[in-house]
């Protein structure tokens, strides 16, 4: 069993061992249907759940009415409420107590009381009062309904002051707003471009962290360190398959956004995909960093969620960054997801191009390079 003239090509360069590790990792992915399921379907399911559930558009708010007058004037006002589309009258009651209890029970969010002196006051030229009770437990609903109620009262007052009937009334000033880029103010248009980023982060971070932590748990990492495989070869070989899965997932989710949720993509999909790459690299770096700290898969999950939380709440995905306290605004600037969400909304909703977004792309690229280098160094130190 002499070595003879061995046909060995020693692993050269810092990426030694890349190809066999890649090949092995691809087999793992294929053999572990749960991981693949986790990787591919769970984000899609989440997309559907969140895509349908998150709807901030206020419409058809359940409204209960106590009309103590029941004449032409009161009916005219109620018609205005109903025609606004914001209110949907679900029941009529005959006392203040019933009005209150309907809101407390939650059968209605808004109560409108037209007092007995409404028409009389109108006729005598005094201010006629209408009471609108708003359930404040949902700030989105209460804010929107108060605004609309005010606008309705204002419109009704003007009409009466000018003595104009609805058909030919013309007001001196009218604000006509035009909402750019998301004309219907549809929630999915706003949320899904951000959701894509959050899902992508969750998946890539977890998969990379798992891939290495699992190997550590098994004891095979120790075995690999004893072979000529170079740390970079091992690292890149383990990461690339998951980066590919992440990228495929991204394409899939964008397709669902476009064709199932009918969110129009105003910019270039290719630009969006290209600008996602530095983000994926950053997230792989985060996953790797987690894997150098976590000794078990549970620990890895906890750490991954630890990074996910700020990315959800401080990235502008849910809450606008501009209305955050200064300290949080500063924090949101160091969260990679912030930049990709800006890019994603920019391209999808506003049709922004490379020259509008190159800064975000540059920042993400720098983050990606720094994070990968730091985690690679930590990883290499663990190898010994």
């Amino acid at each position: 069993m002499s070595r003879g003239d061995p046909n060995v090509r020693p692993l050269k360069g810092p990426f030694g061992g890349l190809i066999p590790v890649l090949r092995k990792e691809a087999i793992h992915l294929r053999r572990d249907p749960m991981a693949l399921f986790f990787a591919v379907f769970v984000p899609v399911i989440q997309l559907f759940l969140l895509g349908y559930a998150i709807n901030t558009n206020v419409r058809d708010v359940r409204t209960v009415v106590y009309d103590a007058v029941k004449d032409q004037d009161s009916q005219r006002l109620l018609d205005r409420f109903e025609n606004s589309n914001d209110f949907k009258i679900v029941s009529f009651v005959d006392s203040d107590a019933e009005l209150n209890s309907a809101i407390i029970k939650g059968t209605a969010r808004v109560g409108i009381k037209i007092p007995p002196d409404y028409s009389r006051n109108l006729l005598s030229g005094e201010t006629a009062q209408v009471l609108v009770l708003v359930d404040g437990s949902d700030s989105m609903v209460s804010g929107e309904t108060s605004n609309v109620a005010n606008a309705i009262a204002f419109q009704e007052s003007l009409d009466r002051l000018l003595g104009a009937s609805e058909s030919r009334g013309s007001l001196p000033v009218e604000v006509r707003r035009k909402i750019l880029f998301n004309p219907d103010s549809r929630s999915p248009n706003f949320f899904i471009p951000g959701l894509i980023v959050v899902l992508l982060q969750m998946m890539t971070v977890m998969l990379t962290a798992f891939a290495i932590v699992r190997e550590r748990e098994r004891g095979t990492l120790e075995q690999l360190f004893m072979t000529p495989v170079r740390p970079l070869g091992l690292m890149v070989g383990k990461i690339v398959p998951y980066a590919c899965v992440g990228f495929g997932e991204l394409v899939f989710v964008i397709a669902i956004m476009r064709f199932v949720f009918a969110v129009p993509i105003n910019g270039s999909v290719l630009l969006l995909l290209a600008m996602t790459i530095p983000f994926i690299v950053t997230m792989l770096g985060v996953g790797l960093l987690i894997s150098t700290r976590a000794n078990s898969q549970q620990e890895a999950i906890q750490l991954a969620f630890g990074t996910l939380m700020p990315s959800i709440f401080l990235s502008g995905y849910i809450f606008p960054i501009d209305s955050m306290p200064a300290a949080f605004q500063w924090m949101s600037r160091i969260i990679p997801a912030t930049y990709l969400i800006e890019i994603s909304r920019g391209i999808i909703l506003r049709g922004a191009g490379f020259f509008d977004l190159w800064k975000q792309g540059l920042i993400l690229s720098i983050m990606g390079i720094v994070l990968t280098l730091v985690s690679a160094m930590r990883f290499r130190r663990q190898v010994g």
Partner: protein
Amino acid sequence: MSVISTDQLTIRFGQFTAVDRVSLAVEQGEIFGFLGPNGSGKTTLIKALCGLLKPSMGSGKVLGYDCATQTASIREHVGYMSQKFSLYGDLTVEENINFYAGVYGLKGDYLHRRRREIIEMTRLGTYLERRADRLSGGWKQRLALACAFIHEPKLLFLDEPTAGIDPVARRELWDLLFHLSALGVTFFVTTHYMDEAERCGRVGYIYLSRLIAYGTPDELKKIPNVSPFGTRRVEITVDNTSAAMGRLNDRNYVRSATIFGDSIRLLIDEKISDQQIIDDLAKDGFGGAEVRHISPSLEDVFVSLTQEAAAARNTKV
């Protein structure tokens, strides 16, 4: 040239010294047994020899390469098989072998020849398509050996290779080791089994990070401290061993007594003859005893050396 030679090799982790001034040499074709309680520094020394840990002090050479500087060359030329079954359970036997062949950079004809040889040697041929986690313990260890040996290393580190596998598989694995060592492969084996230690060419015993015994099993058994001056060891075969041992313990010439199967092993004063023991036993009602002179077992050696080292440490503190 020794395959492994270390000189005052020391590994420290902060304040803790995991390997303390270890000097040893392992020759080509030798099976070197490395023993010691858990946590005494066995695995740390192996990692240092493979170049995973830099010596804090002293030096080591493996296959002529320096442990501190030529680590890449060392890793290319040695094999390592760990105490746990550390292959990929979801990969088949063949995929595991192919992976390690790839990791060691095997190519072309050489790859095919080595794969054929290694499968023949370990007789894994019928299991190639089976997933590694569905193999029994003994076969898993064969696969681990196949993977560690695929690149034809001249030196193999086996870290507790037989922990938790059945006696038959254990015997077969050792037969394989002897076969390979006859072909010139050197083995550095850690184990807790005394019978395995007895089969090694030389053994080292590490305790509290220090190598406290080093030599052939026979040499170790002759260490003076193991059988204190003026004592000898005998084995007595007699009926009703436990009652007999109770009586023997009362004799003031008996330093220690242990039951070993259906016999009793004694450490006695040297001047006491075999006949006197037989007579004394007969007086106590245990007739027909047989006395044989025995040398200490390796277990005796390690137990007494450990006690001695622990005592020395306590007096020092």
